[in-house]
């Protein structure tokens, strides 16, 4: 049961938080590489949301008359849902997208259970200690002591379980 790292990406694809909790779980890469990774993932996430094999494309729908409902009203498109869980041989990545488009990426070992719960708690902490911090500027890197401390102790508790 190990949580390796947490990454937070803002709605524009910029890296705003990056923290490693467990050494040796993931390769060490530079901050620059993390920024590139965040941007890449942001793009891939948008592609995976479009690839839904069951529904017609959003682009196709707007070009046909079926997009306008009764009375010529445009029907609201369903909220897009991109990549949620990525699995590889060495780790598992859970992605949670908030309604405002902020992405939380939690890297754990492949056998970790209940990542949803952990993610929920991390999001709670983000809302409590980052969003309610009057000095935090939206879309900017997260530098909140309180968030760092609470997150650190929560993840340490999970990793030592």
């Amino acid at each position, binding site marked *: 049961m190990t949580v390796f790292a947490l990454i937070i990406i803002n709605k524009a694809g910029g890296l705003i938080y990056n923290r490693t909790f467990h050494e040796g779980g993931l390769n060490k890469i530079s901050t620059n*590489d993390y920024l590139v990774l965040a941007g890449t993932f942001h793009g*891939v996430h948008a592609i*995976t949301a479009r*690839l839904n094999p069951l529904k017609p*494309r959003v682009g196709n729908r707007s070009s046909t008359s*079926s997009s306008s409902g009764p009375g010529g009203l445009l029907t609201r498109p369903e909220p897009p*849902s*991109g990549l*949620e869980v990525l699995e590889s041989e060495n*780790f598992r990545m859970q992605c949670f997208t908030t309604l405002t488009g902020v992405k939380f990426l939690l890297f754990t070992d492949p056998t970790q259970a209940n990542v949803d719960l952990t993610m929920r708690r991390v999001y709670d902490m983000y809302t409590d200690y980052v969003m309610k911090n009057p000095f935090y500027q939206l879309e900017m890197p997260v530098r909140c002591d309180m968030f760092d401390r609470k997150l650190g102790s929560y993840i340490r508790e999970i990793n030592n379980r």
Partner: protein
Amino acid sequence: MVVYSFYIFDRHTECIYSKTWLPTSSDPSSGSGPATATATTTTTNHNHYNPATALRPSTADDAKLIFGAVFSLRNMVRKLGGDDDAFVSYRTAHYKLHYYETASSLRLVMLTDTATLSMRNVLHQIYINLWVEYVVKNPLSPVEHKGGVGVRNELFELGLDQFIRGLI
């Protein structure tokens, strides 16, 4: 378990084979009811584009998008997990994508519903029992499958369809 589609990409990043098992009812333009699932093979080459056989005109674009996503994710996984790590699958709320890469950089991709467990061994089986048997060992098949030449042979198509239908 439902299999939506299957793609093969060669080492030149070209989509050399694609097949979908989507139910026709999911296509809003066709007025058929909840009909049986029809298997449709679409060629990725626009010169041979035939609207009668193509279920959705965006299949060629789909293949490109899938390759882009899979390629980026594979590189991301390699960077984070080390060179020996391999990207296995990802899941969204609507579908799950399975990935298998051979030593010769042949990439097999399969889209299924979200409840499906790992299909890595299935993709491996397809590679061993169908690809190697019917495409690689076919003396008439070229080494490079530009535009899908040599892949779209009867034995491979039939074997793949039977194998997938056996899983469902």
